[in-house]
Each structure stands twice: as C-alpha cells, then as structure tokens.
C-alpha cells in the first residue's frame, strides 16, 4: 500500500496543510467549488446589487440595502465552481536523471502529487496522465474527485517505467475529450525536446521548427478556454553544463534519437550553453505569446520552493524564471 509520503518529501507534506490552490483566472466548473467563477452564483465573493424582479428568491434580498434605498434590492455574489485539473507528467527517459529529490521524474512526481492532493482536498477534480511513448494513455486523464483518486494518482506516478520519447502534441490531443469544460492543464517535464518522436520529425531539424507543433497544440488548448501551466523542470547539469575540463565526455541522447557525441567538455560547453539559452528564451516567448504560464524549476532546488512557485504562478503572482545558467 502506497501513501502520499512515498511520493512527497516530508517538508512538502507539512507544507500542504492549510494550502489552497487558487486560480487567478475565473473557473467554469460543473458544480460548486472554491474557485472564483465568471458567472453569478452563490459564492462568498460580492458581485453587486440589482433590483428585485418577481420570481427571485426572497432570501437573497439585502435588507440593509432595501432600507437604504427604499426599494427591494437583491445581493448578488460570484459563483464559486469546482475546477477540473489535468496533470500530465513527462514519462520519457529524459526525466530519468539526477539523484535524490533532484531526480527530475521524482521531483515532478512530488509536485504532481502535491498539487493533486491540495486540489482534491479542496473539492476539485483531478486527472493524470504519464506522457511516454507515441501512444497516449488517457485512462486516468478524465478528472475525478475524492481521496480514492489521490490514491490512484500516487500509485500511477510511482510506476517506475520510462519510454524513450515523449511527443507532447500527441499526448495533449486526448484533453479535448477528457476536459469538456474550462479547466486547468498542468504539464510537468523538461520540455527540452518536446516534439521528439513525432512522426516525420527530423532529429537534426532546427529546434524552433521542430518544436512548433507543441506551441500549436498549446494554442488549441488555450482556445478551448483552458488555463495552461507548464512546469519546466530542468536539472542543473542541463542548465550549466558543469563539465568544463579536458575530461573526455560521451554525451548520449536518452531518447536514442541522436548519435553520441564525444569530446572534451571544455570544447563542447560554450556552444551548448549558447544554443540552450537561445532555445529557452524562444520557448519562453512562445509560451508568453500563447498565454501559457511557464514555471521553470531546477530540480536540485527544494521541492517546497517549486511547489510554492507553482501556486504563486497559478494565483497570478509574478515570479522570475530560472533561465540564467551559471557561467
């Protein structure tokens, strides 16, 4: 029997108590929940007054306003809906990197489980998919509520199975049926080669050309009204390329799409960093253009910090992205 403690480190587990997942954007849930909605309803948030018309519920009369205005006035409040959340975790071999909680997949699992735990506890519905291989697995993608769902999610993320690639556009397609209303889609992965494995994709193509299908898929989701959050989880090695000596390296592609490259780190590093930085900047601007929230985390940072950063991002608080690599 697995528990939440198997996935989430104790500090984060402690942090979850009393936390709420709030979304800056209005939600559009099927049932009442805790999220601010764009429509009028029975929530706690004051929306405004309007005159009474026959048929209105009398208990919604604002008696103080009636006394002040000397006519029948109704008090209106915003609706508070539940939120459908879809969590998608990169299950490719590229995430199998790092030690301890800096292991990218383990770090992503913790974040996903924590988000699911908070959301389910506040009544939202959560679905999950591990994106790996060319075939999407939508079996748990449709959001569901309850503690049983949390247990299923924990069990699913603990599956220690990887496939070589994670072609994100293929895995975003099932969301069209799994999320019929506005919802929140959270992608957790490194997004360094998000379209690798797409049919017809050339491994040596220009990254901006090769990754365009991802931006297109994100734009499609945004057009459906979903809120999109991409948690780009990078290892510090990937950000900083710390091998700057004469030691001979053989850089292997965990996706097995590209040939190995051998050479001393000192001669590889500068070009690598320049190309990586250019790509991250391009991806950041692409997300910004498409209205996607991008949270860039480094896997050796505390999971709690990353979790709070995601909550802040969802709540609309500004935050600086981790884009600068150490020299």
């Amino acid at each position, binding site marked *: 029997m697995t528990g939440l403690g198997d996935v989430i480190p104790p500090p984060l587990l402690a942090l979850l108590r009393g936390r709420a997942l709030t979304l800056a954007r209005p939600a559009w849930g099927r049932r009442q929940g805790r999220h601010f909605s764009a429509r009028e309803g029975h929530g706690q948030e004051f929306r405004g007054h309007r005159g009474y018309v026959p048929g209105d519920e009398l208990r919604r009369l604002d008696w103080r306003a009636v006394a002040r205005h000397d006519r029948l006035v109704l008090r209106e409040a915003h609706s508070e809906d539940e939120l459908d959340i879809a969590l998608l975790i990169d299950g490719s071999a590229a995430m199998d990197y790092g030690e301890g909680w800096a292991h990218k997949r383990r770090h992503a699992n913790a974040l996903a489980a924590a988000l699911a735990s908070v959301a389910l506890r506040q009544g939202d519905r959560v679905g999950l998919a591990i994106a790996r291989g060319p075939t999407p697995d939508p079996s748990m993608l449709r959001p569901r509520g309850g503690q049983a769902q949390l247990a299923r999610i924990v069990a699913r993320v603990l599956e220690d199975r990887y496939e070589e690639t994670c072609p994100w556009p293929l895995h975003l397609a099932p969301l069209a049926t799994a999320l019929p209303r506005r919802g929140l889609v959270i992608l957790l992965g*490194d997004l360094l*080669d998000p379209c690798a494995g797409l049919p017809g994709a050339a491994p040596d193509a220009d990254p901006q050309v090769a990754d365009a299908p991802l931006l297109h898929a994100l734009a499609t989701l945004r057009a459906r009204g979903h809120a999109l959050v991409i948690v780009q989880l990078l290892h510090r090695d990937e950000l900083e390329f710390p091998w700057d000596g004469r030691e*001979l390296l053989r850089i292997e*592609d965990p996706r097995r799409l590209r*040939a190995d*490259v051998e*050479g001393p780190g000192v*001669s590889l590093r500068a070009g690598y960093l320049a190309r990586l930085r250019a790509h991250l900047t391009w991806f950041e601007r692409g997300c910004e253009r498409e209205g996607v929230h991008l949270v860039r985390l480094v896997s050796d940072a505390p999971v709690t910090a990353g979790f709070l950063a995601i909550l802040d991002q969802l709540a609309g608080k500004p935050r600086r992205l981790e884009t600068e690599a150490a020299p």
Partner: protein
Amino acid sequence: MTLLAPWMLAGLVGLALPVLAHLLGRERPRQIPLSSRRFVAAGDEVVTHRRRLRDLLLLALRVGLLALIVLALARPISERPGALTVLATPHDAIILVDGSRSMELRVDGETLLAHAREVVDDLTRSLPAGSRVGLVISDPGGPRIELSADPDRVRRALARWLDEPGPRPRGGAWTLESGLAAAAALLQATPGGIERAIYAVGDRTDRGLGSLPPRLDDEIVIVPVPVLGAVGLEDVPRAGQERRARDPRPEHVGLDGAAWEPARELDPRAVRIRGSARRYLSEEASKTITDTRRVTVALRVDDQKVARAEVELTGARPASFEFTHTLTGADGPRRASLELEPGPTPDPMPGDDVISLWLSASDRTQVTVVNGDPSEMRAHDEVFFLATALAATESARALDVRGLAPEQFEERLRREGASALAGVDVLILANVRAPAEDIAHHVAAAVERGMGLWITAGDRVEARPYNDRLGALLPLLLREAVVVGTAPGRTEARTEGLAPVDLTHPALRGLTGDLGLTGTRARRLYLLEPDPTRAAEVAVSFTNGAPALLTRAFGRGRVALLTTSIDRDWSDLPIRPGFLPLAERTITYLAGERGGASARHVLVGEPWVLPSEAPMTIHTPEGVARPVAPDERGLITFADTMTPGHYRAEREPGATPSERADPVCSVNVDPDESVTTPTWEEPPSRGDEVVAATAHAARWRPLVLLALLLLALEAALRWRRAAPRRRAGSWWRPRPPAT
C-alpha cells in the same frame, strides 16, 4: 618463394602495436545521458576523438598497406634453378656490363640495362663461396669496382650509377669487347692464385655478346651472360635438336641516317634533306615478316615542325624519304632535326628516333686555285676544265672558286702571312712550280690546321723544291716527270690507262662503278718515291701500278696529289665523264672538317675537333656553355659529346671577326647500336668447369605496386568518409543578432 631479408618480417609485429595501443591505452570517456543532447553539436569547434575502432575497412587497408611494405622490405624472391652458369670453384670474377645504347631497348616495360641489374644481382649471389667479384661497365664513364669479397659493393655501385641523373644507358656506341681490357686489368691488378673469369652481361647482338672472344689470354675465362633468357646447362642443344626460341625482342623503328644538300635548282635557299628509316626485327621475324608499317617522320627546323612525311616500312628493309625546305630568315647554320613521331604504341628504343642536323643555305666552300699555267685562251688554261667541272656540279655544296696567279698568291702570303689562308678551305696548286721558300711554311701550317691542299702535276712542277718545302706533307715525295712510253719496261706503250678506282677510299666512298675513268689515257706522269711510312692512300692508280691520285692526312688537313696534269697537256682525264665526280669528291674530301656546317657530324662520344686560334665557348644541347681553349696546334678538342643534338661554338667577345659563321656540329647516335637482332648463339661448352647456379627472380616489385594501389584506395575511402562532414550545413551556426 624465399626471402632475402627474412628478419625484416619482424616488422610485422609492429603492425599490431598501433591497434593494441589504441585498444589498451585509449581514454575511457565519461558517459552522460543528457536530455539536452540536441544542443551539443559535434564537428564544429569540438575536437572529436575516436574512441572505438569504427572504420574497420580503413584500418584493414592501412594494416594491409603496412604489411605489404614490410613484406616488400623482406625482399621475397622466387628461385629459377639453372638459369645462370658460373664457375664451380671459388674464383675471381669481374662482371662486365654492356653499357652501350643498344641496352636502351625496353622489354617487358624495362630497359635491358635494368634487366642487367637483376642479372648482376643473380650473378653476385650465385658465385661460389670464397669468390671475389668486381665490376666494369663498357661505358667508359661507368663505375669500375675492384675485386672484393663483398658482392654488395658491386650491386650498390651499379645501382648508384643507374640511379644517377641522366639517361641510362648513355647514347654511346661501345662494344662489349671494348670493356674486356679494363676488366682484365682489374683482374690482373689483384694477385691471387685462383681461377679468373669475366662474366660479360649483354644482349645477344653482334656488338654485345657477339663481339666477345671465347677466352682471354688463355688464362681468363669469359662467361657470356645474356640479359634476357640466361644460359643454363640445360640449354645446350642436343645433336639434331633445334635451339628453342628465346630472348623475344620487340620490334622497334629508328632513323638510320640523314644527309642534306642545297637544292638551288628549286630556290637559292632551298635544301634537300634525305634520310632513311627502318624496322629492326628479330632474326626470325625479319625472315617472315613482310607486312608494311607506316611511320611518320617530321622535319623540325629551329624547333618548329615544318614538314611531315609518311614512310612505309616493308619488312626489315630501310626506306628512304626526302624533304625539301626553303630556309627563311637570317643566314648561318640552322638547327634542324628529323623525328619519328610517336605511334599508337611507344617505341621500345626511342634513342634513335631523332637525327640532328645543321642546315645552311649559305654553306659554301672556299676554293683557291693557283694557276701555274694561265693562258689567254680559256681552253688552254690550266684550270679551265677544273673550273668548268666544278661549275657543273649541282649536287655538291656551293663552291666559291677563286683563281690566282702564283705571283699573286705568293705576294698575298708575304703581305698577310698565315691569315691569307684563314678563309680558304681548299687550296689547289695546279701545275705550280713550287711555293716560294719563304711562304711554304704558311701553307704547311694551314694544312695542319685543317685546310685541304691539292697538288696537280704539270710541266712546271719541280720535284726538288716541292720535296724541300712541302715534303713533310706530301703523300709521297716527287721523283721526276716521265713520258709514259719511256718508262722502264714499257717501251711499246705510248699512253697509260687508269686502273679501276678504289671505291673504298674515303674520298670516293659511296660511288659505284668505274666512274667512267677507265678509258683515260695519260701520256706523261710524275713518278713518286715509295715510302710506306707516309700512310698515303691511293684513290686512283694507273694500269702500270703507279699512283694517279693519292691522299694523305696531315694534322687536321688533307693533302691530295694528282700525278698527271689537270688539263689536257698530259692526259685526257679532264674530258672523261668521271672527271666531274672525281673532282667534286676530291674537293669535298679535302674540305673535310672545314667544308661547312654539313661536314660537322660526329657520333655520340666522339670528340669534335675544330681549328681555332682563339678560345671559344661551346653551347651544348642541354643549354650549358663550356669555355674551351685551343692547344698548341691551334685545335680545340671538345670531347663531352655524350648528348645527341646540336652543338655550337661561339667565338669569345673581342675575337677577330671572321667571315665564316660560328662552327657548329651535330651529334647523333650510332645507328649500329640500333640493331637488336640476336645473332649470338654460342652455348657454354665448358663441361665440368661450370655449374648451373640458382638464380632468383625478384618478387617484391609487385608488392610495392600493390602497396601503392592500397594507398590510393585508402585515400579515396578516407575522402569519401569525410564527405558528409564537409557537406553538413548545421543549424547550429551562430545566428545574426536580432535587430
């Protein structure tokens, strides 16, 4: 198959070392599975190391290449038992190698001289233990190696000589026999009580092995060793058995002679060049082959091809051809050459495909006739018939004939001294009493320097003054003029006829028949004092045996003496048909070395002797200028004529200007060396003296060729492997900054 240097195979161990070092000593790379691998680019600024044996084919090629080189260094050979004969007991041996031009013939892609190198290698290895060996080349410029117990000295010396810059063999014509003296001298210079032998390595031609005597001084054995098809004991034919055909010789074509003459009937500056070409076939082929082969001969004047002619060569018969060409431009000798144009297959002996000539439209011989009996009536003049005959010669070179009275001649000599004769090629003293005593030495000195002198008899000739003043140069001393009928024992005869002329005399060589002189009747003649020491050559004699025309060389000049008159006073010789060619050829012969450009023609290796009072510079065909100085006799001897072509002597600046052009000389190869017909068939018949030794055939040369082929393959493969990297246009190239 054996190896001459088997220890070199140890080098094969070295082949494994690079591979082992690579496998064992390589640095293990640190493996990093990096998700951002797409941002790591190989091939730009990355120094990529090879960590695995990836290009196995390339490695195999390189290892194979090294292995072949090692194998070639080990010098594999295959044995040919019984291919050579050597003396059975230890002995002193000199290997005499034919270095003449006939060894230039290419058989199986290599010259005979290169084949001879292999034979010498075989010989030095086949000699019995304890033998000493030395080396002589029939080319006088070749190495001479004294007897030594180390055969490598011989091999190295021969290899060094063959590898020296310049053609090998050189163009000289030396018989193999000409090297025997040097070989024998080397043998006799080293004392030793054992047997002595000369192994003569050459081709089977008359000038090669065919020129050798069977034994030298009854002490030195001569063992002929053919370059191709070496002799073994088993080659000795049994009775009634045909000798099997060996020594296949490729057919080759060569020019075997050329001459030219003015063709003034066509144009004052026209010349007619005649030459002949022929096919040189093997003996068997020359009997059977009767087909016709076409070759093209080109005439080149001043390095420009001016004419071509197709010549049909049928069988082995020489075919003559003729060009006429009108010289343009400046006077003076012009360099010309006849060249066989290359055919579809290269000529195996290219050395005789070119003949060099000097052509001149103004090539005139200066003839001065001292008329001892002038007459107002032309028909009675002493030299009327001579001048008329010379004027009628069309084929001879142009003659500038000047007539002088004896007084004029002597006066000029007294006034100008020896320089009065400097421009004279032939001086004719026709019925002159004798040159005055004070000027006679000028005449003798001029003859010694190359002038021709023709003395004709007559009533005015006096024996004693001639004998006293020019006796040193006369072919024979004069005794007295006699009337034929009064000759002792010939009282009945009133006239004397001429015996058939001696056509072997150099002046008459090439003429045929009796020249139309047999009807000549002489009434008077001059008797001569017999003197065998004077080496006079009689060209024409009377039927009674008395010489009529005789010649003698004196210094560089020639002297002719006609013992009857050159007009009709003493005989009817001038009106005989043969008088014209006789006079023309005599003057041409006397002009000799000074008769104009066409007369300077020497064979390769022969010295070019030219009279000159002052130092000169000789320009050789290689473009080298060699200063030369005359000796005390006023002669320049230029011996370095090993290169065929055009030689020109230039007077030193400031020298006395001369009316004549700079002396020139054409040097050509001896056509005798072109004859490759095998004629030598003498088998060794020394019974128990000789044994069949084991000879070796070198097999490493194909290995070297194979190694070169592998090298080319390796380069091509490497280039092909590198092509994709060269073509890679990577998107990683830095982008221009956004503006």
